[in-house]
């Protein structure tokens, strides 16, 4: 082990902090930020970089599993995706994309600040990145709570009813989603007040930006609320071709008849009405057959449309809004966006750690690895959202 000479403070007067770079003739010194097993700070940085890139590879593969599930289901049932995508608010998704892109910018800028030793700016940039992340989560909370209220749940819990889109009386999902963040905000504010009275400058310097960060979650919630009420996204596309029993929860679709097929094929739509009853399964099959026939006769259907090996004639446009099919779509949706949100949460945690370190001025032009590595992770999270957004929200 090399001898670590206690560095006389006088040699590096410009370093107010003790992790000074080893200037001049202090070859065998190692600054406190340089670990023993590395020769130079650059080697340390490169090693860490390699490590984080390998981690990012595992993250990519992690998400690729879900993307594969998406691809399979979309390949097999494209109409389910087109139909259910209408429930996703494109505006909110676009806002979230913009917010994450901006957070990527501030994160890259933060990396630059750590390299140029602009300390206050670094803290500011990290706080900005954190705020964007919180806004993202706030908008997500609005999206999720809105869907929960409509019963658009994963498979097995799916209970959307076009006739009654908004489920009356159910827990206030938005409140429960906001609760942890509200507690976080209150905790930070209380801590800040205590630190203020104690005159603890360090804590104040850390907690002030964190207050802004915690508030930004509710900025996101507000933004989502404003935009959500401005646009009506969920209710187009499912037309109630009624003739069907309405009240039961099990009825997730009113339009089991294909749109092209005209009702009144039978007199007074009697058969349609009877087919609405679960017990008359044969009538339903008959209606389907009639529909398929008219489809083929009118030429609107293309036979053997799918390239599947065992394709059969299913000319009638399939009903996508069934509990199992739409449920699978929403399972995929919640899985992908939920796991992505968990990654955002983890990123928030790590960024807070970085923020604290930055207030301590721990980074300098030879030691900025942690900021760089977290930056890489954050860019990857942004990358994943860049792919998620068009795949989920922009299907037609």
């Amino acid at each position: 082990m090399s001898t670590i000479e206690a560095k006389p403070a006088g040699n590096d007067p410009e370093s107010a902090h003790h992790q000074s770079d080893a200037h001049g003739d202090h070859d065998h010194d190692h600054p406190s930020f340089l670990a023993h097993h590395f020769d130079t700070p650059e080697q340390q940085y490169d090693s860490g970089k390699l490590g984080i890139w390998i981690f990012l590879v595992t993250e990519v593969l992690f998400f690729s599993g879900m993307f594969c599930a998406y691809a399979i289901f979309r390949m097999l049932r494209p109409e389910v995706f087109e139909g259910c995508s209408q429930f996703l608010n494109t505006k909110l998704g676009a806002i979230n994309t913009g917010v994450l892109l901006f957070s990527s910018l501030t994160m890259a800028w933060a990396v630059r600040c750590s390299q140029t030793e602009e300390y206050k700016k670094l803290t500011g940039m990290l706080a900005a990145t954190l705020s964007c992340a919180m806004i993202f989560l706030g908008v997500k909370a609005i999206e999720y709570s809105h869907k929960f209220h409509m019963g658009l749940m994963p498979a097995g819990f799916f209970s959307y009813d076009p006739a009654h889109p908004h489920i009356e009386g159910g827990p206030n999902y938005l409140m429960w989603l906001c609760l942890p963040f509200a507690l976080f905000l209150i905790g930070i504010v209380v801590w800040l007040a205590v630190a203020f009275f104690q005159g603890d400058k360090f804590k104040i310097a850390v907690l002030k930006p964190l207050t802004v960060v915690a508030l930004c979650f509710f900025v996101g919630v507000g933004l989502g609320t404003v935009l959500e009420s401005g646009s009506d996204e969920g209710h187009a596309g499912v037309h109630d071709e009624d003739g069907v029993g309405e009240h039961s929860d099990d009825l997730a679709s009113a339009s089991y008849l294909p749109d092209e097929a005209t009702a009144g094929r039978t007199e007074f739509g009697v058969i349609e009405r009877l087919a609405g009853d679960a017990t008359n399964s044969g009538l339903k099959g008959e209606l389907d057959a009639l529909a398929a026939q008219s489809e083929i006769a009118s030429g609107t259907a293309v036979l053997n449309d799918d390239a599947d090996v065992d394709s059969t004639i299913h000319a009638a446009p399939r009903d996508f809004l069934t509990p199992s099919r739409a449920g699978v779509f929403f399972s995929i949706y919640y899985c992908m966006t939920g796991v992505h949100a968990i990654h955002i949460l983890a990123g928030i945690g790590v960024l807070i750690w970085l923020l604290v370190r930055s207030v301590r001025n721990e980074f300098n032009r030879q030691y900025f690895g942690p900021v760089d590595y977290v930056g890489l992770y954050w860019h990857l999270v942004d990358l994943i959202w860049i792919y998620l957004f068009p795949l989920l929200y922009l299907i037609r």
Partner: protein
Amino acid sequence: MSDHDHSSADDHREGYDFAHPMPVPMLLTIFAILVFLTIVTVAQASFDLGSIDIAIVMGIATVKAILVALFFMHLLYDKPFNLAIFLSAFVFVGLFVIFTLSDSRLTSKDFIPVDDSVITSPAE
């Protein structure tokens, strides 16, 4: 200030002056391009381009991803090995997805358990 001037003394130390701060104009330009491409993506969704729809969308997303990777993630100025590692991830993702997709095409069309026996779905 000591006689070791910060800005010039680092050059002779190999392994100490390796920081490559990205210029702010570059960061802002890349951000502007990304936002522009996002707007393009959202706009094209309102046009029905048929079967190349998803190809265009994925193409734009890939361009954005490349911009983020090369500039924000610094790969353009980095050691090429890091780029090789990152690209290899997508090679394996490609293998994974291609094999799985082609296999699922050959199996039964729809393996989703249709447990909503009540009314709603057309019979399989």
